[in-house]
């Protein structure tokens, strides 16, 4: 059902090939056919006038919770994939913390089948590292890989036993699998809900110290060296954490790293008077940490920005701060917030877009996030001049909670194409 598409006069930005120029892009049979010159024998079936718009690879999101199976009251595949394409996201990885967790091949196959039938976004399940995410017994990682898992993680579930962690890393390393870990020492996080700093002290919120991250990070880095496994570090939140990752990468360890888009913009101060939409995991830290995270993005210590999309139902946010569920919707904000970061911090757009396209595709190990002729035509076309207001009705996701609710954001997605199909058009 692929039709040929001619995207005219857009500003093409392709980080992989270093392209940032106004040109045409031609799509034939779901693939990028050529940039600039019309391919031989090309017949227009659909022309998209992209004058004044930016044409870039579809976004690749390393963490988007779709909430299926088991948590459909928070969100469904239908609602969240619709949100993804509305946000220009054409590939996403979903963490295993569903109910039940993605720890059996059958569950993964079902998820793959369901997402394939919706045919909108490439969904890459991340398998559970241990059964039921209990941190005790390993999952059948090879079977899970065959079923479609691209990596293995423990999501936000605690994995307190370092022996189990080491065995899991060794086993994954046997098959060349990647292990994705969010560094947090559970005994130090100790049911905290906010960064151990001035705001938590003022508001009397249970704190999470930075050392909860750095001690776990230190363990993971040492175990990476020990086991040789490829490790992807998820959601670093602190300046010290960034420094440790930088040092580990300089030593040549096989480590990649991402942060969540909210942490690029926000700090503990944004909690204000107990804004429960700012209850996030990991917690928003201070200005110094935020600047270090941005510095890490610029020097490449941090590879990718993800949405860390976590739709939460309203009731779970309408409680006193400490009792609320952590998380925010993000799929539809990732592009706008990345764009906003680039424009306000004066970062070349090609560099900023790299962190949400090519770099995360490389973490996933997929051929995507670029516009090289022959590549799948996964494309996002957005208007850099158009602002949109984040409200419950402008967000497609079933989760309406985000710290940016009520804010105007720049960069409106006009078209999203997956494998050359127009899956979103506004």
């Amino acid at each position: 059902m692929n039709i040929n598409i001619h995207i005219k006069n857009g500003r093409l930005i392709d980080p992989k090939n270093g392209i940032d120029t106004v040109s045409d892009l031609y799509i034939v049979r779901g693939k990028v056919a050529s940039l600039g010159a019309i391919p031989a024998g090309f017949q227009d079936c659909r022309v998209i006038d992209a004058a004044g718009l930016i044409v870039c690879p579809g976004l690749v999101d390393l963490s988007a919770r779709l909430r299926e199976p088991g948590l459909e009251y928070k969100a469904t595949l239908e609602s969240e994939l619709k949100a993804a394409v509305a946000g220009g996201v054409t590939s996403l990885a979903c963490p295993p913390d569903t109910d039940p967790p993605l720890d059996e091949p059958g569950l993964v196959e079902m998820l793959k089948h369901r997402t394939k039938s919706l045919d909108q976004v490439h969904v890459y399940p991340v398998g559970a590292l241990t059964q039921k995410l209990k941190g005790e017994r390993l999952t059948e990682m090879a079977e899970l890989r065959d079923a479609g898992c691209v990596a293995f993680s423990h999501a936000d579930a605690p994995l307190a036993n370092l022996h189990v962690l080491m065995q899991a890393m060794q086993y994954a390393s046997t098959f060349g699998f990647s292990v994705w870990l969010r560094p947090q020492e559970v005994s130090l996080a100790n049911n905290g809900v906010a960064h151990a700093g001035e705001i938590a002290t003022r508001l009397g919120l249970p704190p999470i110290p930075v050392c909860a991250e750095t001690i776990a990070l230190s363990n993971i880095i040492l175990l990476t060296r020990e086991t040789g496994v490829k490790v992807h570090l998820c959601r670093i939140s602190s300046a010290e954490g960034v420094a440790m990752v930088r040092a580990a990468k300089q030593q040549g360890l096989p480590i990649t790293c991402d942060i969540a888009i909210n942490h690029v913009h926000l700090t503990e101060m944004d909690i204000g008077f107990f804004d429960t939409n700012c209850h996030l995991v990991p917690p928003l830290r201070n200005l110094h940490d935020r600047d270090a995270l941005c510095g890490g993005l610029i020097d490449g210590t941090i590879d990718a920005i993800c949405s860390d999309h976590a739709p939460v139902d309203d009731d779970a946010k309408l409680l006193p701060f400490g009792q609320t569920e952590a998380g925010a919707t993000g799929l539809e904000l990732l592009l706008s917030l990345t764009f906003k970061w680039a424009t306000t911090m004066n970062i070349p757009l090609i560099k900023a877009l790299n962190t949400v396209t090519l770099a995360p595709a490389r973490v996933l190990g997929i051929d995507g996030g670029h516009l090289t002729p022959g590549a799948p035509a996964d494309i996002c076309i957005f208007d850099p001049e158009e602002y949109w207001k984040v409200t419950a009705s402008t967000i497609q996701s079933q989760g309406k909670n985000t710290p940016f609710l009520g804010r105007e954001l720049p960069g409106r997605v006009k078209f999203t194409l997956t494998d050359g199909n127009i899956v979103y058009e506004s």
Partner: protein
Amino acid sequence: MNRNPQLNKHGELQHLLTTEGLPVSILLHILDTAESFAGVTEREVKKIPLLRGKSVFNLFFESSTRTRTTFEIAAKRLSADVINLNIAVSAQSKGETLLDTVNNLSAMHADMFVVRHSQSGAAHMIANHVRSEIHVINAGDGRHAHPTQALLDMFTIRRYKKDFHNLRVAIVGDILHSRVARSQIHALTTLGVPEVRVIAPKTLLPSKVERLGVHVYHDIAQGLKDIDVLIMLRLQNERMLGASLPSPEEYFKYYGLTQEKLSLAKQDAIVMHPGPMNRGVEIDSAVADGKQSVILPQVTFGIAVRMAVMSILAGN
């Protein structure tokens, strides 16, 4: 960031949720109004009709005797109808959410909610969701704030020390878990006390506490030097179960207030405690009952201060 949710658009007090961020004029207005009520409590006929026909709901999601009682007395002296709800054992145990409880009570035409809850931010959340004619008074939320306690402490200090501008005040004990300490610190710094000290072992101090504008001491002997006002905090028994402290005995030895330690402060220093006291843990009986103690007057002033807060809110 939203504007201070305690103030209405004219800058007047809409709710009393915390002492943080309140202008000095509002704090002084409360204290001055409380002075005028302090006389009422000593009169033969103790009632005045300022809140006649108004309904005050005491919503205590966490148990309390003293605070709830003084709020009740204060409301009754202002001629309000008072409804006490011990929610800890009713709706919440049936699974009703905090907001549902509040919405149901709002539908019963409440004019004022006095709220105590174990979670920081509970009073803010309620204030954000009630109709604009309803006033919320925070009677203690988690570790966050207990503004009426802090205000009655300010009232007590002013009674005995007259002026805030030349005082050194020390708060001793479990600052980390104390909503009272946080509210006192904000009130003291706002009212112009030049030096506020906190004295505690490191396990009982929150991170970055100095950012609240206090000087940190770990040695009580150094911390009490030249002090005009000592505020002792209650050490909750559950702190002994965790790893915060080794034993009540060691705590008393190093941080408990005895006559000997009190002698390191100024001769005319006053000793305060928000209650309930653990005698022999944070304070020795000889000090608690001694001539420098103003602990019982604090309780008495609590009624006048709460009357002042209610009457000001009702008038705004």
